[in-house]
């Protein structure tokens, strides 16, 4: 296997998640943690939940991104090393949901940072979240190193 192929393989086999709550009702957060339980055992695919954005490859954003959270979300996104992908998790993060066009909304997520994968649902099932991570991996595979 040549070097570039090896690196792509390693990236796809070891996606580390960082979870950012930008004003979610906690429902999507609970489902994300559900998806990481032994029942689904995503460590089989190398998925780990990391505490620091510096260690992560995949940024999972939940919530509508309110005005307070928007600059923080931007900073967390900029703190992540390249290459990285962003997943918008839940109806609020993809479109604003029932909070769309409310006075404190700065989002949805794709208004603040570029989003690669959308997972709708209120909340999405763990199976849907795992499916979304797999789609993010396909995106990661297509990325060249250095590019976003």
């Amino acid at each position, binding site marked *: 296997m040549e070097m570039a192929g090896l690196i792509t393989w390693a990236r796809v086999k070891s996606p580390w998640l960082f979870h950012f709550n930008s004003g979610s009702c906690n429902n999507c957060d609970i489902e994300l943690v559900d998806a990481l339980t032994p029942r689904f*055992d995503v460590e089989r695919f190398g998925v780990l939940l990391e*505490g*620091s954005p*510096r260690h992560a490859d995949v940024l999972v954003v939940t919530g509508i991104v309110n005005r307070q959270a928007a600059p923080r979300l931007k900073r967390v996104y900029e703190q992540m090393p390249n290459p990285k992908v962003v997943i918008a998790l839940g109806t609020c993060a993809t479109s604003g949901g029932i909070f769309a066009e409310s006075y404190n909304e700065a989002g949805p997520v794709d208004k603040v940072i570029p989003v690669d994968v959308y997972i709708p649902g209120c909340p999405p099932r763990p199976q849907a979240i795992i499916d979304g991570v797999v789609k993010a991996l396909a995106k990661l595979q297509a990325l060249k190193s250095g590019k976003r």
Partner: protein
Amino acid sequence: MYVIFMGFVVAPNVGLFFTWIHRKLGARMQWRVGPPIYQPWADFVKLMSKETLVPATAHRTVFLLAPPIALFSAVLAFLIMPFVIRSPLEFTGDVIVVLYLMIMPAIAAMIGGSASGNPYAAVGVQREMTLVFSYEFPFITAVLVPVLKAGSLRFADIVSYQMERGPFLLSVSGAIAFAVSIMVMQAKLAFPPFDIPEAKTEIIAGPYTEYSGASLALFKLAHATMLFVLPCFVANMFLGGLAIRFNDPVAATIDVVLIIVKLLALVMVMALIRFFYPRARPDQAFGMFWKAATTWAAIALTLSVISVMVGLPYL
């Protein structure tokens, strides 16, 4: 050639294999399947290929130098110890040097963490420092037991003494000192119940919070290498060493099996402790070392002094 091969090929790769054993055992204990065998290598290659960010608040040189220091000290500690054959780098007093080299990864984490300028890293560094101060004293006291019994500060002498008269684990003082060493190994690798410096749910990743890409990969590799170095050290000190008697094919086969059994047993004991216990509070952990571990190590040392003076090898 031997040095390059053993230090930079065997030690990190066996260490990564041991981290896989840990993750797999933890997964099986939680009734899941766990990661495939290539997982630690995939993680390492991925981290190496990622961008390395240096925070604006960090001292650039110190921040980037800390991970290689950690890795090279771990590799050097392994090279000085006898493994299969006597080390070409051995000298009188190498036990002391290895003791110092095995603290170096923790010190490198402290230096790098404080150079990163992150408040979480600062808390992690304080915790790491207090932990190092509390476990080093009982550890050195426990290591003095085989040193006293063999009457030498040289690995080769300690191992050959044990090959003649049986491992130190089979004596009372040796068994106590071995138990103290197991406890210290857990703290040196920051595994539960002593994962206080990098407690994920409290201080993100402690000293490693700001590390990304290749420098994080080197820290992870240093940690994996230490997961191989520490069992080697304890096996050399208490379990009769990791030597092979090449002159006799039957004995050599038995020795190869024994090496694998000793190392895997130590790694599995560490994994069991790691996945059965929750994180101790800092004051609880420091109390465990300063009160319980230091007392037991002192008892073991006293017994070993008596055994050497009176001539009772089993004491």
